[in-house]
């Protein structure tokens, strides 16, 4: 399509790209400035998040921040229990030496030579700079998953996403099949009703849905998150439009062969409607994985939190542990990025065709 022609353009034509009669129009310059700035603004924050997520807590506290995850080197020195941080200190006679800091008293730092532990120095803190090396703090990722509940949150998110998507696909494809294959009394009324529910977002009916969920005794269970959004008008609409285009002869032929209506649904129509079902599956995975407001209302106990709720709770604490939050944010966005990387075409055409997300 259009992309193919764009890809054939070589670097040479790129640099001299222009429209019309050979003059470089201001819009050509603007286009490339805008695209360059766009990359920085859209990718920059995510790159910064990923880089930061590999820094140690001490590295995160540095101001101004360093680009890459650098960690201060520390050494074991004889006679001291803990590893000591290494600094490059400028001594009184002007020589520079790598020393380990024992303790800091006000603006003076008490230091020891790691090679000769009996030599100690007193250095003003302005005359020393930390010695750093490139170090990736993988413990930011491992610790929250093991020590805190993030493993649990991850599992809950996966369960919600998978189960909800399965139910969504089943009941919406059944409804779409009913609405597209049969002529029956009340078909238009039901279609109108389905489209009508599109107008009622969850934000408008928070309290009564909470009442329904409480009556069903589902508060603080994952079902409370899974069930209310399972029937989606977007899904019915999307699948119905697609199933309407399927040839009727196929269905008639299947009926001749004495297939039951249910068999026609799952053996003939479902396989043919796969492209539309794939789009709905991707949408559903996105909705469920990213869902926030509704889970926030019905899940109040830490052991049923999803990743999104876990992150929110963690960042709301008084002593914010950013090194863990950043790493867990990366974990939360990985599935989305993977899906996007592989299925971009599906998603963009799905949105462009349905005008929904």
């Amino acid at each position, binding site marked *: 399509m259009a992309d193919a022609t*764009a890809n054939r353009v070589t670097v040479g034509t790129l640099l001299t790209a222009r429209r019309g009669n050979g003059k470089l129009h201001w819009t050509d310059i603007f286009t490339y400035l805008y695209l360059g700035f766009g990359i920085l603004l859209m990718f920059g924050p995510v790159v910064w998040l990923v880089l930061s997520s590999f820094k140690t807590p001490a590295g995160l506290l540095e101001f101004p921040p360093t680009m890459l995850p650098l960690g201060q080197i520390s050494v074991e020195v004889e006679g001291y229990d803990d590893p000591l941080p290494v600094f490059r200190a400028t001594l009184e006679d002007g020589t520079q030496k790598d020393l380990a800091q024992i303790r800091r008293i006000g603006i003076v730092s008490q230091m020891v030579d790691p090679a000769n532990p009996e030599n100690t120095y007193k250095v003003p803190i302005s005359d020393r700079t930390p010695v750093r090396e490139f170090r990736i703090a993988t413990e930011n990722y491992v610790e929250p998953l093991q020590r805190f509940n993030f493993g649990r949150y991850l599992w809950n998110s996966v369960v919600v996403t998978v189960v909800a998507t399965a139910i969504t696909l089943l009941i919406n494809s059944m409804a779409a099949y009913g609405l597209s294959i049969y002529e029956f009394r009340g078909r238009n009324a039901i279609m109108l009703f389905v489209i009508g529910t599109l107008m009622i977002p969850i934000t408008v*009916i928070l*309290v009564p849905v909470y009442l329904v969920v409480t009556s069903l005794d589902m508060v603080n269970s994952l079902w409370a998150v899974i069930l209310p959004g399972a029937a989606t*008008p977007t899904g019915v609409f999307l699948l119905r439009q697609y199933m309407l285009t399927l040839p009727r002869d196929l269905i008639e032929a299947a009926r001749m062969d004495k297939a039951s209506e249910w068999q026609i649904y799952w053996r003939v129509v479902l396989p043919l409607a796969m492209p539309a079902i794939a789009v709905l599956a991707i949408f559903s995975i996105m909705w469920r994985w990213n869902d926030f407001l509704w889970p926030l209302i019905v899940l109040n106990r830490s052991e049923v939190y999803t990743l999104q709720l876990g992150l929110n709770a963690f960042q709301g604490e008084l002593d914010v542990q950013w090194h863990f939050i950043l790493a867990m944010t990366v974990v939360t966005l990985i599935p989305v990025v993977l899906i996007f990387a592989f299925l971009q075409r599906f998603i*963009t055409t799905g949105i462009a065709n349905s005008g929904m997300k």
Partner: protein
Amino acid sequence: MSSDTKMTLSERLQTVAGWPLQMFFRILDVPFRAIQKLGGIGPMPYVFLLPNLAFFGLFVVVPLFINFGFSLTGGTNLFPQDRVYVGTEQYEFLFNCENYADTTTCQEDRFWKGLFNTAIFVFFQVAFLVLFSLITALVLNRKIRARGFFRAVFFFPVLLSPVVVALIWKWILLRDGILNAFLVSLGFDKILFFVSPEWAMFWAIFVSIWAHMGFYTLILLAGLQAIPPDLYEAAEMDGTSKERVFWRITLPLLWPNMLVVIVLALIKGVQIFDEVYVLTGGGPGTATQFIVQYIYNTGFTNQVQNFGLASAASVVLGVMLFALTMMQLAATRRRDNG
């Protein structure tokens, strides 16, 4: 060699994964076939529609009516039989203002502050969202190299969760964040973005535009690509200037899509909650607290859960959204009828 080993790995995976699925559908064939035997094909569409409609009924239609009923009751009990009928008291409480222009004179000033904040947010957010989506769509519609890549660059934040988006930006905007480091390196002072009401509102708007722009860009891009190329060729042959082509061809032909985008953005904007809630928590004070957060706070987080008041505020929000949806339908109809 057996025939199994000739299957490719993906085929084998499909068989393994498909087997439970096959069984599931096969087992369900028994009851469905029984119903068909009893009633013929006639009732089958209703059977297929039943689960979906049951969900809609239970989680959308019934709640919609309960919502209105709730808003006419008071007390702190959740179950309707324990609640007292108070008539329009909740609405009177919400709308009791001495001077509607000054939110502090209202009895429920948090609600009015929320409305007022939402109005400001929606006005600026939608205006700049549409503007930047249009510019981005125009740029992406040009003959540029690696267009697919650039489209992805602008689109991917749409898929990120609101919590992730908010945390990404919070990390940048903190007191010792990279943006302040940049400002300091330019010789400015650090700015405490989440302490100043104006800055907090600015970043709430900015971040929500950053996150949602790709979606609207995509719709506008589809609209741009539907404009017949002969029109541009004819204009080029006539030597029409590019500015004139934009104002006389592109914009008028894109306008129906623009309308749809504007109304969609309004509908989403009025319901703003997630990103801003995580980014600013509604603060400083109530500077970035919007209607949905008011409903959430009133109904679900306060010491005394005031479900009646939250429902009344929901009904007000619902009326606003209904009006906007009618506009959306009109805009869509205008677009599709050309």
